């Protein structure tokens, strides 16, 4: 067997591709579903936390900061394992995909909160002055004047962070969520061949390369035109 054939047989064995393609596709659907749910929940919760933080209540803000810092400091895998193996001990039995969704959503929320908060802070104080001087309430000024500017500033870092967090859906494999990597490793252990893993890698590329490119486009488009 020459090297080329060996390479093909190891990573791109045709009959294995045909056999496991349906499984990998199923995994893609699961990954997409969880990723989308994570994006929606994580960004919404992050924005909500940033808005609450802007009210500047000391106790509440201390709680938010602790949550955010702990979530950002812990490796995601540690959180996934703690929640998955810990919750049943207190009588809460969650399906593994729900655990993955919860953990990743909280993680994204923590990062998103910091990004939104930085965006809110970076809007010049004169904007608050102008808005409040015309009689807008605090929330009206925040909603109509500050947030639209803050969100524009946050789009590039938020896009990057969202991609980074949603890729962590692969962690679901350790708790048995049937996402891409889980399907691929299962297939690998049945076939004793790395082809399904390569298929998994390609599946990730198919999913995330368009997102990365979109992110780059958004980044250039949303560069704020400063007055």
């Amino acid at each position, binding site marked *: 067997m020459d090297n080329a054939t060996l390479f093909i047989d190891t990573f791109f064995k045709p009959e294995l591709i045909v056999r496991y393609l349906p499984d990998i596709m199923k995994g893609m659907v699961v990954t997409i579903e969880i990723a989308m749910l994570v994006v929606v929940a994580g960004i919404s919760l992050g924005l909500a936390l940033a808005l609450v933080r802007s009210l500047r209540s000391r106790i509440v803000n201390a709680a938010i900061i602790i949550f955010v810092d702990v979530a950002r400091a812990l490796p995601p895998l540690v959180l996934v394992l703690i929640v998955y193996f810990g919750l049943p001990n207190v009588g809460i039995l969650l399906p593994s995909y729900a655990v993955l969704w919860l953990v990743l959503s909280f993680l994204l929320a923590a990062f998103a909160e910091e990004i939104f908060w930085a965006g809110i802070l970076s809007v010049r104080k004169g904007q608050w002055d*102008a808005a409040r001087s*015309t009689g807008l309430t605090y929330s009206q000024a925040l909603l109509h004047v500050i947030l639209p500017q803050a969100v524009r500033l946050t789009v590039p870092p938020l896009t990057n962070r969202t991609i980074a967090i949603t890729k962590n859906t692969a962690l679901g494999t350790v708790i048995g969520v049937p996402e891409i990597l889980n399907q691929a490793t299962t297939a690998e252990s049945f076939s004793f061949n790395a082809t399904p893993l390569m298929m998994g890698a390609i599946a990730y590329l198919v999913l995330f390369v368009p997102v990365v490119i979109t992110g780059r486009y958004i980044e250039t488009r949303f560069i704020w035109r400063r007055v």
Partner: protein
Amino acid sequence: MLARRNLILEVRGLRKSFGGTEVLKGIDFTVEPQELVFIIGPSGAGKSTFLRCLNRLEEPTDGSIFVDGMDLLHPKNDINAMRRRIGMVFQAFNLYPHKTALGNVTLALRKVMGLANAQAEAIGYAALDRVGLKDKACAYPNELSGGQQQRVAIARAIALQPKIMLFDEPTSALDPELVGSVLAVMRDLQTSGMTMVVVSHEMRFAREAAHRVVFMEDGLVCDEGPPAKIFGPDANPRASKFLAGIAR
């Protein structure tokens, strides 16, 4: 204390401290309807802080402020409703960069006064027309010159039909050739009877347009009177010294 009904603005014993530093040390100040009052003084005198207390962008530490007979500092009075009646124009314009000129003018009309879009836009166009920028209604702030931006900011304030307008160094951030267009709009407002308090270093404008000039120093009103007095030999020596220092 009863406010005198014929005053648009009545300030008594106004004090403001930041931390341990007292910036305003007990200011008494009144403005009559249709009056244009100029506030001048060295930097650090507390002029801007004073102006910002007049619509509670800064919270006074002590004293009283009555606007058109209403107690601005009374907790029961709706500060947002009162602010709508106190127009403010800033040194840095502070236009909303994500909104067009018209959008800048109509935001408070829609959200504070609760007007329908069509109605708000009609008022918005009229206000922009007033400052000579009706044809720039759809332009974004970054497409406008500094002078035009400041005029939009003035339109944003006058659209709310304020009882009094506060100008915080409205021309200080402008290139010299753009100052005239903003002063012309202010002059027009004054002629039409708008009550105005102006913090500015435009001495020629003060001399020509102001009814009264107030000289502030070190957190206190040091001297006040008609321009002829403040700019003449009868002024407080400190005011004369300040004016001699900035005359070039």
